[in-house]
């Protein structure tokens, strides 16, 4: 392989391991099929097409590859959930509705290296014997949609797609379907409804596990963009070699997007578990801005629970002794952070320094969730605007100390009472922020506010009855 050089200023950090991102910001690289094939593209596919589909699934299972969309479910295991003796068509959907705030990894793949995804998709489709696949791309990627459509046409012209692919008798059609700006379409059953052309309300599981009853009522596999690219990587390296690298329970590389108050925000591809949050933020991202200190970290996209940087976390050593650490000592794999009550999710790390007001950060998140709730389940539809109202009231200095508890209790009553995981996603930030930064919330409140009316109408009705202060 020839030496890879990157565009000036875009060179990977020495601690990065570029696999999926090998061609991102690479000097002289363009999204055309010619460029991709010159670099060994579609060779893995050719190898895979000679294998039995079940062997590919086994290889992916052996690799221990876990989905990169946020939930971290083992990809190979997901594929085996297609009912045995199924006679209906099988569909594969690529989830490119990257809408979790803080996550921005897929953008680079679909803009700069679309064929990598297509190759991964064809391999996955062959493994599950799907002859129809959909790339669900978010509406905010209009340029990527054009690039991807061109890439699909190129692949079809070279007979990597279409009828009788490479003379193997395997047919596959990939359709690019664009969303229209709804966060809920990132939820797999909502996404399926969106493709079916109905309102993207998530479906209830069970019985609507996509692998059994998915798109058009047929078995459907929904995988994230990065997961599908990783499938290609697994088949390139071999399942065992892939499993040998990185954290034991979540092998392979991970793409981490860092945003917020660091010197060098951006996307970095690392071997899972090879570095800690501290090394990521101080070594790779250059630490906090001058004169500031890290205050809080959201480790896995906006819906993950926030972590305080000065919080002492207690972990058990293998010999049973307890050791104390901070968030900076936690390794970056899929599970370590879960021990401390948060999640690593889709790999979007949002960092806040000591200049930030936590109630205001939460208020921003609450607005996001209030705006994006699909409205299907009452706790979420009504609870989110309520939480937004409460956090706004607190931020405006009109809240009372009880409002902080009320805010948390609203969140507690959404969590676990909805059809999809959005209920958890929207309540976790509120639960974590109000618990971990309670003093900041309380500092903005005044007990007298509990006795004051909250709306103009009640203020008018009670104008002679309300205490001034």
């Amino acid at each position: 392989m020839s030496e890879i050089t990157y565009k000036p200023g875009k060179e990977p950090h020495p601690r990065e391991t570029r696999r999926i991102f090998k061609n991102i910001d690479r000097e002289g690289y363009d999204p055309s099929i010619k460029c991709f094939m010159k670099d060994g593209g579609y060779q893995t596919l050719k190898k895979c097409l000679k294998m039995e589909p079940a062997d590919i699934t086994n290889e992916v299972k052996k690799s221990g590859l876990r989905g990169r969309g946020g939930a971290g479910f083992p990809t190979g295991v997901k594929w085996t959930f297609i009912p045995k003796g199924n006679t209906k068509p099988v569909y594969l959907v690529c989830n490119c509705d990257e809408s979790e705030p803080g996550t921005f990894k897929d953008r680079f793949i679909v803009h700069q290296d679309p064929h990598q995804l297509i190759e991964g998709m064809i391999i996955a489709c062959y493994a599950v014997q799907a002859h129809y696949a959909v790339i669900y791309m978010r509406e905010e990627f209009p340029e990527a949609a054009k690039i991807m459509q061109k890439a699909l046409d190129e692949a079809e012209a070279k007979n990597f797609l279409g009828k009788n692919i490479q003379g193997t008798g395997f047919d596959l059609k990939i359709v690019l379907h664009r969303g229209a700006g709804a966060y809920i379409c990132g939820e797999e059953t909502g996404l399926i409804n969106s493709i079916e052309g109905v309102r993207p309300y998530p479906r209830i599981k069970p019985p609507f596990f996509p692998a059994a009853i998915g798109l058009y009522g047929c078995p459907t596999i929904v995988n994230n963009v990065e997961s599908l690219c990783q499938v290609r990587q697994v088949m390139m390296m071999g399942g065992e070699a892939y499993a040998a690298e990185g954290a034991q329970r979540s092998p392979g590389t991970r793409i981490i997007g860092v945003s917020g108050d660091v010197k060098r925000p951006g996307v970095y591809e690392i071997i899972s578990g090879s570095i800690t949050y501290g090394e990521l933020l101080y070594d790779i991202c250059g630490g906090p801005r001058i004169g500031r200190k890290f205050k809080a970290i959201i480790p896995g996209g906006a819906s993950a629970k926030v972590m305080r940087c000065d919080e002492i976390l207690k972990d058990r050593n293998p010999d049973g002794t307890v050791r104390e650490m901070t968030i900076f000592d936690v390794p970056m794999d899929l599970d370590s952070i879960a021990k401390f009550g948060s999640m690593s999710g889709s790999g979007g790390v949002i960092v806040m320094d000591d200049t930030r007001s936590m109630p205001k950060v939460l208020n921003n998140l609450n607005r996001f969730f209030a705006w994006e709730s699909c409205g299907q389940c009452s706790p979420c539809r009504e609870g989110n605007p309520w939480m937004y109202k409460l956090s706004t009231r607190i931020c405006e200095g009109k809240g009372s100390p009880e409002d902080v508890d009320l805010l948390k209790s609203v969140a507690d009553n959404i969590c676990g009472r909805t059809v999809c995981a959005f209920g958890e996603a929207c309540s976790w930030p509120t639960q974590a922020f109000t618990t971990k930064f309670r003093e900041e919330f309380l500092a903005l409140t005044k007990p007298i506010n509990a006795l004051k009316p909250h709306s103009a109408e009640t203020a008018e009705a009670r104008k002679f009855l309300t205490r001034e202060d």
Partner: protein
Amino acid sequence: MSETPNAIDAITAPISSPGEKFFPKFEVTPELVAKAQELVALYPEGKEQSAVLPIIHHVQEEFGYVSPEAMPWIAEMCKSTPIHVAGIVTFYPGIHRKCPGKFHFRVCRTIACALAGGEELLPYICSKMGVEPSEMTDEEPMVVSPDGLWSLEAVECLANCGYGPNVMVNDTLYSQVTRGKIDEIMAACKKELAAERKEAAAAKKEAAAARREAKAAAAAEATETTEDESATKKAAPKKKATPKKK
């Protein structure tokens, strides 16, 4: 009958916007039907309804927004019902029921961009466009300037969080946007509009000249039809363009 509209009529009632003058009025043409049929053909047989979003996107690209007249046509194309299409149109924030301006600005205000100062850009852009920030509400997040040239919408997460604040102008994403960069973008937009107008004027002039010529030719040779006239007329409508990324 009473004059009060029912709920469905209220949902599909037209919302006027000054942006309309920059887009053609919705009209069913053979090309539009062909495109819709092409989109329907992408999906498995009997699943025409899946094409509802792609057709809506195409209509929005051509006409700027999904007008009430377009909904029954879309429903017809994907073998659905108008109320179903209305349900889709009202669900997604990316589908406009009101015509945006010629240059549609989408400013991200979600956490990462907000930390980078995205929200502070909103009042500045409002003042540059000549609109009131208070016009932007949670119910109607898009405002259109009185001249129809600009529109502004506060959106949630454009998925480029590391490089905020992010602003999308039509189809182009600008990252790490500052006030100065907003000025530059708007100047570039104005320049583009001027160039487009000049082009359109030149095309009009050309068409007029061609028509005169054709008339003269027709006068000279009365039997000949004026084929070239219709050809030049077709070439005249201005193209919808997006600002170039710098």
